[in-house]
């Protein structure tokens, strides 16, 4: 009798965790899941746990929707991104990176657009003129572009249409000349060259040009790289800067219904002059973990995502179709230990307190017997170059020679990229010269090191918190072939190179450049930094400083291309920034669920989003 009671009591105990676990599982599997695209899965999922399996598979998710297009936008789409960024309202408050989100999410429209063919095409402005004396841009705004009415915060209200006032407001907000508090990514870029934007009439605005920038209007006025969308002045008048952090009123083909930092963005299609989207609701989820993004893609929870290159094939095996966004040229900044002593624009002296020529790879133009002017020639006569500049050059060259680029591409990129030769001009570009390409030659490298009288040494590399595969692979090659040991410096970049205050950076940095840009565009860091006195890996090199400035001010495309080629030759001799490879940046989408024919595209690399343009997506 008592034994029975004990037995019962024991079961009581063990039943508690068992029952509660089962309860949890049932709750978990019975829950409503709005993330999977299949709306009909809800009924099935509520029944039993096993139903979730069926509901989550892509097959279910590709259930036939209402017939598309003619009836207006319909259907849902989910994308898994590394980050959804921070909602920032006023253009001027747009911290670096946020610009991409705002128009990559197709919610804000830029004044012009960059077409997939590489041309600048009308957008908010249906036409524009550059004054013959290069003193201003005139924008003719397309009438009848409505601002979003149903967006978050400002929803339900009619904010009218896009007028010159809004354009002038947006421009002036971003431009640090007109808004000194602007922290927008291109604030400084504009400050060099553009003055206030004035309203001429309802649909005409004029932007003053202080200094001609040969890359405009493509560079700052389109979605080519970082830019700014057109915001509504009325919204700003009503809500102010702070209020605009929650009110998203743009004029793009999608309006923002929700933007929760760290979690998700929900977009809804609206009628648009460019193209009314097919997909009604787009949800962007922030999923920083690549493994989770892959899992979500495989499970059909996300239809678009982005991963590192080696995992693209994993996605393709799961039914993914890859779409090329851009090619990124990876290179090693080997001379960020700045040389430039004079601001090339203003002529004032620059302070390089941290310049340290004791490193074996740093050329020292300030040593006795060295001639600074050789740095300003395209390719100097080697006899004119003093040892303190030439030997480090040979060291850099040797290090570049010791890298087996084919192995890197084969091993780290699964063969999906190709070796690169010049960071400013892609190998596929017509202006590219084969002579710029470095051949893998370990013996030659060793001979060159001997010639330079340099034995093994230690070098520092800043790796930040990104995946460090490429750094380790390259330094392994250096160690094997040349006996160079590497120290890795992690942590935020600002700890290693704070500001202009101490403008020298004694470690290598591996960087990437946009490969698809035309050769005649001045490459490298934005004009902002340059006009403030030169910075960034290649920015500290005197010859590049001059090229950059000249290219900006030169209106003839042919001449600009010639200057870029000159720099290529200069770089080939000096090896300031050995190029490693050109890697494709892909976005991957579920082929059975959607199609993505491009009508326009942005060429921004290194973006965390990879989901532009949304209005071109059609569901199957």
């Amino acid at each position, binding site marked *: 009798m008592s034994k029975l009671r004990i037995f019962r009591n024991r079961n009581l105990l063990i039943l508690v965790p068992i029952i509660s676990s089962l309860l949890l599982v049932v709750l978990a599997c019975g829950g409503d899941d709005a993330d999977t695209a299949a709306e009909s899965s809800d009924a099935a999922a509520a029944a039993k746990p096993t139903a*979730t399996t069926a509901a989550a598979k892509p097959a279910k998710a590709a259930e036939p929707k209402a017939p598309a297009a003619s009836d207006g936008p319909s259907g849902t789409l989910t994308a898994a991104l590394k980050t959804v960024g921070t909602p920032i309202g006023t253009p001027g408050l747009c911290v670096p990176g946020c610009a991409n989100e705002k128009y990559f999410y197709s919610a804000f429209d830029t004044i012009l657009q960059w077409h997939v063919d590489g041309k600048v095409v009308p957008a908010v402005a249906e036409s524009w003129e550059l004054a013959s004396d290069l003193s201003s841009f005139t924008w003719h705004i397309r009438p009848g572009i409505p601002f979003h009415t149903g967006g978050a915060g400002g929803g339900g209200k009619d904010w009218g249409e896009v007028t010159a006032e809004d354009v002038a407001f947006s421009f002036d907000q971003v431009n640090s000349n007109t808004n000194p508090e602007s922290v927008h990514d291109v604030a400084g870029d504009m400050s060099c060259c553009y003055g206030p934007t004035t309203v001429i009439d309802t649909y005409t605005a004029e932007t003053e040009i202080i200094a001609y920038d040969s890359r405009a209007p493509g560079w700052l006025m389109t979605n080519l790289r970082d830019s700014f969308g057109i915001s509504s002045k009325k919204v700003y008048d009503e809500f102010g800067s702070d209020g605009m952090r929650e009110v998203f009123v743009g004029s793009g083909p999608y309006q923002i219904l929700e933007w*929760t930092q760290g979690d*998700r963005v929900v977009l809804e299609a609206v009628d648009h002059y460019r193209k009314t989207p097919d997909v009604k609701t787009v949800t962007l989820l922030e999923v920083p973990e690549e493994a989770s993004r892959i899992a979500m893609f495989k499970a059909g929870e996300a239809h678009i995502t982005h991963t590192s290159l080696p995992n693209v094939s994993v996605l393709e095996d799961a039914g993914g179709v890859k779409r090329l966004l851009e090619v990124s040229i990876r290179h090693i900044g080997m001379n960020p230990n700045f040389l430039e002593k004079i601001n090339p624009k203003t002529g004032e002296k620059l302070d390089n307190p941290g310049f340290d020529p004791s490193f074996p790879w740093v050329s020292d133009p300030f040593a006795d017997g060295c001639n600074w002017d050789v740095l300003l020639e395209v390719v100097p006569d080697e006899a004119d170059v003093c040892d303190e500049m030439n030997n480090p050059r040979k060291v850099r060259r040797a290090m570049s020679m010791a890298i087996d680029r084919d192995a890197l591409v084969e091993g780290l990129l699964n063969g999906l990229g190709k070796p690169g030769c010049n960071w400013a001009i892609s190998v596929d570009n017509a202006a590219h010269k084969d002579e710029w390409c470095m051949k893998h030659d370990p013996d030659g490298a060793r001979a060159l090191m001997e010639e330079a009288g340099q034995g093994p040494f230690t070098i520092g590399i800043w790796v930040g918190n990104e995946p460090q595969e490429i750094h380790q692979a390259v330094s392994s090659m250096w160690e094997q072939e040349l006996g160079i040991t590497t120290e890795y410096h992690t942590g935020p970049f*600002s700890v290693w190179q704070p500001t202009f205050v101490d403008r020298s950076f004694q470690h290598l940095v591996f960087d990437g450049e946009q490969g698809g840009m035309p050769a005649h565009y001045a490459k490298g860091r934005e004009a902002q930094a340059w006009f403030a006195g030169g910075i960034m890996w290649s920015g500290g090199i005197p010859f590049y400083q001059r090229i950059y400035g000249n290219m900006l001010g030169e209106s003839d495309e042919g001449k600009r291309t010639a200057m870029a080629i000159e720099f290529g030759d200069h770089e080939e001799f000096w090896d300031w920034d050995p190029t490693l490879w050109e890697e494709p940046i892909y976005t991957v989408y579920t082929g059975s669920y959607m199609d993505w024919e491009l009508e326009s595209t942005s060429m921004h690399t290194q973006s965390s989003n990879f989901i532009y343009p949304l209005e071109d997506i059609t569901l199957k």
Partner: protein
Amino acid sequence: MAKVILRRIVLGFIALFVAMLILFSLSRATGDPRYIFIGPEGIGIDPEVWDLMGEKLHLDKPVPVQFAYWVSDMVRGDFGESIALQRPVLQVIKDRLPNTLKLAVASWILGTIIGVPLGVFSATNRGKFLDYLFRGFALLGQSLPIFWVGIVLIFFFAAQLQWLPAGTKGEGGFISFKHLLLPAITLAWYPAASYLRITRTAMLEVLDTEYVKLARAKGVGMYTVWWKHAFRNAIIPPLTLSVFVLFGLVNGTVIVETVFAWPGIGRLAIEALWATDFPLLAGITIIFGALYLLMILMLDLVYAFLDPRIKYS
């Protein structure tokens, strides 16, 4: 009694103050604190902005004065502005705190309802196979790295079997159990293990006492002995543990939220790290510290209520 509570509160505030001192010292530890306050790009800061920052941080004044400014700002609710997010720190934390709380509370509940009963069960079946099984389960829970467990769970249940979602919080209103399950399991394993072990030990000790032996000798039924006598006393250590468990959950959420893309404070802290967003990180730390302090105080009150024998030292 009230005096003791008051003393505890005062000590608590002192602890919080010292904690803030520690944080402040860290921010000034490497010289000019502005270097930590710069965004990840760190390029293109105008000398004007640099100087402005110096003014805001009162760098012209002596260090103790700077600390005074900092503390007084915090007391008034001004935790500064997040550098990366350009929004007030407190607001950012407020937005994402509920998510972490949901996850932490769910994990705590899960850990308790699995750990404690199994612990009692283990104690009453000491030496048997199930005892060893549960103790093995507990041992694993305290030995496996959380991030590894999370990754493996995602791999199996989300990627391979596709039974559960691979991450994020999900849409469902207050809570989405489907999305909560895997992160909660990952986070709850360690606490469940701790609870199991400590409940087991406590039960064993109590069952061994004279008092219980006497009761059983008198013929009181096992059931009564277990529940009325042993368990009531054995519950004290697990209760103490609860505070530590909740504290440990804070550490755990940092990792679990990262692995499962859960939009809570833990992940915010990591993002703050990589964005060198010191104000945000400091704010999160202080908030957690204050919350923990609150929990300790509440625990003291619960103690007093539960067992008048417990003396305050």
